[in-house]
């Protein structure tokens, strides 16, 4: 029996969940929940509020030097913009289901909110929605079939699973790059877009922050042409950028259906310890959102807050 089923059994309303989730429209559910929260808040005193603040693991500020973090963020965004990844200031909330409808994320790991929203848990999903909207509405139109829509952001993310790693927090800043394009054959989008993301990450980590131990690991994932994608992309980038260190893993021990065809990790060594400071790969989100199999989408996430803690 799930926690929800236990609660419904205790209050002797076994059909309540079905009523709320299936019989009410989203608008009706929202109105109902607003009323519920309004009533509960009326019973809350300022002293209770402080107690909740002290107990709630999501609401405390990050323990870092804000001005220096902002300086790092500005430098990173400058690089993103110079490489033509247009910075976007996202809303702190995204449509409910942004992560779990198109990707393999569990909605319970996301802080679901009212009015059809959720607190941003993955900015690359929000950028996918923004890119799909720009394309569908005609606000962005390619002049060449190979043109890419490049967007970037640095955003604070909130995720609900309790953190188990020392130094990690419930909310953290991630720098994101996304490239949206169309399949023009011969993995052209995949080769060009991934090489661009690697060029940006190299400019940030190796050239600006002077982390000499930077390397990338390409991991084969199910979904696209059984390894041809990884082989083609790795060969292309190795020929183009002989200065980059690229490892490949064609038989990973663990499957990850989140990425399609290729996942990549950004690895650095600081103080003798290796860190996975970033992660990315190809996803089919814009294919799903735009209902078009020719759509291609590459995402990269860089742990800006973790990076800040490591390099300062």
């Amino acid at each position, binding site marked *: 029996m799930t926690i929800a089923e236990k609660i419904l059994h205790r209050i002797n309303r076994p059909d309540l969940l079905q009523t709320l989730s299936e019989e009410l429209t989203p608008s009706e559910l929202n109105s109902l929940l607003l009323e519920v929260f309004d009533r509960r808040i009326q019973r809350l005193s300022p002293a209770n509020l402080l107690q909740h603040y002290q107990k709630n693991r999501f609401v405390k500020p990050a323990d870092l030097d804000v001005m220096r973090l902002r300086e790092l963020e500005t*430098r990173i965004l400058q690089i993103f913009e110079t490489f033509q990844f247009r910075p976007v200031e996202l809303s702190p909330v995204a449509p409910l289901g942004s992560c779990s409808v198109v990707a393999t994320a569990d909605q319970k790991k996301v802080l679901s909110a009212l009015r059809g929203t959720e607190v941003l848990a993955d900015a690359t999903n929000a950028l996918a929605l923004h890119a799909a909207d720009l394309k569908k509405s005609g606000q962005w139109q390619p002049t060449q079939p190979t043109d890419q829509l490049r967007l970037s952001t640095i955003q604070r993310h909130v995720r609900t699973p309790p953190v188990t790693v020392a130094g990690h927090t419930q909310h953290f800043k991630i720098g994101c790059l996304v490239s949206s394009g169309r399949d023009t054959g011969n993995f052209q989008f995949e080769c060009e877009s991934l090489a661009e993301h690697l060029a940006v990450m190299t400019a940030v980590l190796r*050239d600006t922050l*002077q982390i000499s131990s930077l390397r990338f690991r390409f991991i084969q994932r199910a979904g696209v042409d059984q390894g041809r994608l990884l082989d083609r992309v790795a060969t292309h980038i190795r020929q*183009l950028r002989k200065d980059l260190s690229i490892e490949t893993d064609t038989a990973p021990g663990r499957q990850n259906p989140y990425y399609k065809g290729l996942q990549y990790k950004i690895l650095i060594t600081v103080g003798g310890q290796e860190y996975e400071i970033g992660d990315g790969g190809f996803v089919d989100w814009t294919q799903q959102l735009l209902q078009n199999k020719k759509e291609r989408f590459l995402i990269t996430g860089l742990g800006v807050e973790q990076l800040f803690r490591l390099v300062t």
Partner: protein
Amino acid sequence: MNKGRVIYEDEAEPHFRLAYPHPGLTAFVEYYFEVNQPATLANPLYLNALPNLSNLLCVSLRPQSWLSINQKSGALSTVKGSRFLGNLTDLHLSIYPASVHEFYVKFKPGLLGKLFRINPAEVENANADLMNFIPLPELEEHLQTAPSFRERVSLMERMLMNRLYGFTPDYRFAIVQTALNRFGQTTGDNFHLSQICRELGVSYPSLHRYFTEVLGYSPKYCQKLLRFKKGLHLYKRHGSGYSFEEIGYTDFSHFVKNSRQLTQRSPSDL
């Protein structure tokens, strides 16, 4: 690891062009050059700018920005639009992404300070909007639409001829330029400052004062910068086997030590 590289004046590059000035401008301009980089974002051009004494006028011919990173402090600047670039005290790595096209004028050290009455210290590592220094909106537009490097050089020379007409560098500026030329020519045993002072007919304290007024640095520091640039060029051509004593170093180790002092890198990483 790609740490960028230094391009020398005698290198032929498809994305790098260089022209020397008209004889009437040689007292003011070192040379003109152009960076035209049509590559992809995935494979940007990496260039190193050594610590130097030059002031550059940079006219942006395409609206694409590029990055300049101070390799000592880590300070990052995005360079966009036409710029005035001051002399550098540290090694700077420039990263040019796709479609960068810039036209540069490299002035004689200290000239712009004299011309615009700017204290040399104020332009150290400067990376400022050109319009704040030299408002030339029409010239910028003409340079952007000129079809070739040669035509851009002609346009710039016409403007400089007009601007510099009647400008006569004073005695101190001339002495400093002569001394800098001598630093560049010195080979064998004739690189000692005392000897150069004797040849120029000035005492070392006077030469020191002139250098500080015109460039903001001592003659010794300026000589060190120019000697290092020359040494690095020779190292790139001949490797560590070159006789570095010829240009004033005690030995190869002295040259490497100088490289680390000035750029925080070994010569092979430049």
